């Protein structure tokens, strides 16, 4: 069950953060994952552990396979004809690609927020209620109302929309739409939230709000965020993975990656030599 400690109290001690091999059981772990689109390989032999209560950032030049790898984590690649995933991805020690895995259930546990806000052309209320309805999370209207309110509150949107829940979700501003999408993902009580460049379509103020929100949310979920902004990775994440040409070049504490990268290629990218 999710505990409700204030955000600061959920931060793990520095000593544990610095050591990927500490005693923590990872929420998700990938082993030798390769992803192909038809004959084209987009992700090459990536292994990574993702911890709960951390924000993990994927950075790297565009086209290096960040989105592809992210989508492998909740099997969204299944919806692309010709996409194929090799290797093993575990969620709480269970292989999500094993036969018999319930993809519908997996995606309820591993939620996703997309690059461009994509609220459904329905009311704000119906957008949030969508997931709880299809997964049968609420008994009756009162419970559903409670879930909608809780999710909107967590996404920091409640005060702005509580008087117009019946308005269309597509009528909100871009930043509000993206927070609506985050609230929608939260509503089914996921354990992991995947975000693919969630701020790239937003202005700086909306971006700051989302970053703040991510920081609040990390107390409850494992969050993975793809970003092309290194400042953003530095601001919101505790762990950073650097991808290049389909491979994961380096993974570690965010502060280490940015101040003291081990790999030459990481250093080149961080200092803006390419990207």
């Amino acid at each position, binding site marked *: 069950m999710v505990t409700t400690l204030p955000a600061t109290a959920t931060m793990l001690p520095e000593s544990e953060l610095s050591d990927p091999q500490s005693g923590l059981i990872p929420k998700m772990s990938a082993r030798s994952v390769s992803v192909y689109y038809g004959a084209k390989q987009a992700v090459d032999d990536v292994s990574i552990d993702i911890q709960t209560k951390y924000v993990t950032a994927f950075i790297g030049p565009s086209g290096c396979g960040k989105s592809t790898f992210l989508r492998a984590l*909740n099997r*969204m690649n299944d*919806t692309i*004809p010709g996409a194929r995933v090799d290797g093993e991805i575990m969620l709480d020690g269970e292989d999500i690609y094993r036969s018999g895995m319930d*993809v*519908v*259930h*997996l*995606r*309820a546990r591993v*939620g*996703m927020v*997309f690059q*461009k806000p*994509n*609220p*459904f*052309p*329905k009311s704000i209320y119906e957008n949030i209620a*969508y*997931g709880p309805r*299809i*997964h049968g999370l609420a008994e009756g209207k009162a419970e559903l109302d409670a879930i909608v309110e809780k999710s909107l509150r967590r996404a920091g949107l409640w005060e702005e929309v509580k008087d117009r829940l019946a308005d269309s979700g597509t009528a909100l501003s871009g930043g509000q739409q993206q927070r609506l*999408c985050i609230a*929608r*993902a939260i509503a*089914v009580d996921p354990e992991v939230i995947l975000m693919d460049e969630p701020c790239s379509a937003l202005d700086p103020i909306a971006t700051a709000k989302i970053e703040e929100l991510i920081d609040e949310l990390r107390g409850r979920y494992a969050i993975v965020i793809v970003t092309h902004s290194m400042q953003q990775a530095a601001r919101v994440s505790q762990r950073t993975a650097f991808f290049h040409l389909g491979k994961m070049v380096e993974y570690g504490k965010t502060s280490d990656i940015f101040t003291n990268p081990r790999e030459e290629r990481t250093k080149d990218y961080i200092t803006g030599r390419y990207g």
Partner: protein
Amino acid sequence: MSPSILLLLGLGLGLAGWLAARARAWNFRRDIRNEGKGGRLAALPSYHAWYVALWIVLPVLVFAIAWSFLAPQLVTGWVLSDPAAAGLPHFGFERRAILDEAASVALGSAPGVFNPLAEGLVEPYRLAFAKVRWIGIAATLVIGFLGGASAFLRLRPEFTARTRVERTIMTVLLMASLVAILTTLGILVSLVFETIRFFGMVSPLDFLLGTHWGPDPMGNPLNPDPSRYGAIPLFWGTIYIGAIIAMFVAIPLGLMSAIFLTQYASPRWRSVLKPALEILAGVPTVVYGYFAALTVAPAIRDAAQAIGIANASSESGLAAGLVMGVMIIPFVSSMADDSIAAVPQAMRDGSLAMGATTSETIRRVLIPAALPGIVAGVMLAISRAIGETMIVVMAAGAAANLTANPLEAMTTVTFQIVAMLTGEGSFDHPATLSAFALGFVLFLVTLALNFFALRVVKRFREAYE
């Protein structure tokens, strides 16, 4: 007198003008070079050439079209003023036949005259045809020459031939698109005209609200019985067959095939099935009519008799409606297909990423989002169905029954239009004129449906722009 000769002549003149104008523009260009002060032609020589050519060809084209309407009138006028025409009967069919006979002999398309009265008219016709031909050719030459010369004299090095040509092309395209619109307007005007004549004989209230349809084309045209002109049974039959029974078939099947094609079918299946469905839309409706009359209607009657309905007729609204529904499937499915495909992929991804299954995604996100487009498709399909004639003529029957029993024969507006126009009544008998009133109502209803459907589609497009 064929206008194609005039057109060929115009094209020849146009070519000559084209070459002359281009040569002239090349000269301008050479002069500018020789002066050596820089500067250049405002338009490429070929634009000067096209400018002159268009000024020759377009006036000739307009003249040729006008002449092809005018020339026959002139010919007839001249022939009738000939003394030999004095002996012709004054009116009607015989007079027309004699004139036609003489004309075809004069043109060489018939070997000799049959009616002695036509004999004397052959020579006047031959003269008139020759006269018209020479006038046409002379006028073409004059018009082409004047047009070309006035354009040619306007050519200067700084003449902006390029923009002029562009503007001319735009005008031509505009005219082309007006043809269809003007034709529709013309049809509407003639419909309105005849409809007003009909309503002068039978009151619109009797027509629109009466429940008995049985015009008597042999009755006294000056004193028609308004109680026989009640069109409600026809409207009902049309709606029952075209908008109810047919849609019962077409909406579910069309929607399901669209969903399968957009969401489940592999690209291979899609590339086979989509064209196959579209071929259905191209099958001549008379073929569906055979199928309805010879296969479906008897099968329905047999089935009805088998379950104890002894008086089932061999023509039924059900047979016509079912087959019409099949015919309409491609209309529903292709509009639904387009509007489902127009829902952004991000909606689908968003729903799948929430853990929805494909069918939940279709039901809860794609169809609601695509609904306006689907509704518009259904409305277009209905307007197609209620205007459909062949199937109901062959399978629905002629009896204007006001009934909800699909096994009975019923009739539709389109069927009665055909029946009234091809019936025994003379052209200004109210029974015949009622066809125009029916056509007018049908026209208004389908126009409204199409208009509404297009507006819905437009709003829907804007929503995703």
